[in-house]
């Protein structure tokens, strides 16, 4: 045979052959192997279902947060209409938190969606590979019953054994991947359930001091912006001219700004 001395193919071939040595009489193990692979395929399907479940829970949480944002915004308006700027500010601060959390959730959901698509793709490929294996299995079984074809059988046995090992490898890789995705989806859910996102938000997402201060600064100025916008809409304009928001950050005025 044309000499392939390439390392990758040599190593992989050695591995497959090792798997092959373990399989004894292929005709006996064929059926078992096929059944086993079909069962394993169910695990991959279950993995997909789990990822979908995690995604749905996170989506529910997303909806809740979206409602929360709307509600807090309304509350801020109401408070402002009644000249309770302190309350309005609190509501807007909470709205900022909710929005940041929502962004993080959006990312998680998008990630789960990608994972889901990848798993579905894997599952389909596995399914067609198993189908291929089923056909080969029938061929070798037929050949086994024709006793005169001894030589051909041992060649074919190697072929089907290799196929068996390869299906096994494909299944194993899909399972590893499924497990990893399932674990990550589960972890996202747990984090969300434990309110870790909330804590993170309150600490500033990075948790270190500079991050926290930066986060406070940005969310504070976002709150100031919101407040100014609402005031303008309510015709209470105390808003400084656009572009000058930085000047009075500490005490965005509760009363009118002195002229």
């Amino acid at each position, binding site marked *: 045979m*044309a000499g392939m001395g390439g390392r*990758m193919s040599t190593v*992989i071939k050695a591995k*497959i052959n090792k798997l092959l040595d373990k399989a004894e009489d292929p005709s006996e193990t064929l059926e078992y192997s096929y059944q086993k692979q079909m069962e394993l395929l169910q695990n991959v399907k279950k993995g997909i279902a789990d990822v979908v479940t995690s995604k749905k829970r996170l989506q529910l949480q997303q909806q809740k947060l979206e409602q929360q944002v709307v509600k807090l915004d309304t509350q801020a308006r109401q408070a402002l209409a009644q000249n309770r700027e302190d309350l309005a500010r609190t509501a807007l601060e909470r709205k900022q938190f909710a929005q940041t959390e929502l962004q993080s959730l959006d990312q998680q959901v998008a990630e789960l969606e990608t994972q889901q698509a990848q798993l579905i793709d894997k599952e389909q490929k596995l399914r067609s590979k198993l189908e291929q294996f089923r056909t080969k299995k029938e061929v*070798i079984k037929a050949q086994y019953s024709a006793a005169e074809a001894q030589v051909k059988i041992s*060649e074919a046995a190697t*072929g089907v054994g*290799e196929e068996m090992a390869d299906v096994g490898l494909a299944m194993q890789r899909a399972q590893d991947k499924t497990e990893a995705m399932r674990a990550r989806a589960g972890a996202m859910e747990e984090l969300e359930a434990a309110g870790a996102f909330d804590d993170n938000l309150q600490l500033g997402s990075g948790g270190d001091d500079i991050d926290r201060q930066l986060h406070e600064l940005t969310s504070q100025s976002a709150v100031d912006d919101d407040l100014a916008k609402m005031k303008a809409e309510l015709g209470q304009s105390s808003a400084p001219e656009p572009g000058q928001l930085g000047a009075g950050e500490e005490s965005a005025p509760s009363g009118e700004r002195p002229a």
Partner: protein
Amino acid sequence: MIVRIATEGQYHLPDEDSQRLNDLDNQAVEAVEAGDEDRFLQLFQEMLDLVRRDGTPVGDDELEESDVILPPPDTTLAEAAHEFTGDGLIPD
């Protein structure tokens, strides 16, 4: 010759492609040893492309042992590094 892309399937490949495949394989392993992910992925993709383009799929009712087996198409550099370098490497 018959080439299998692991986890994907077998192909009949013209013997003339053997040398090219072999070269790519060795270059890919060099890239793995150098930890050059881009180069590894590019070379490995070239190998897969070569087999898929020049090869014809082996029928479901054909039972043949492969002459060459390539790693699964989604092999990462980390996996390749684990498999093809360091201890336990089959010497050239």
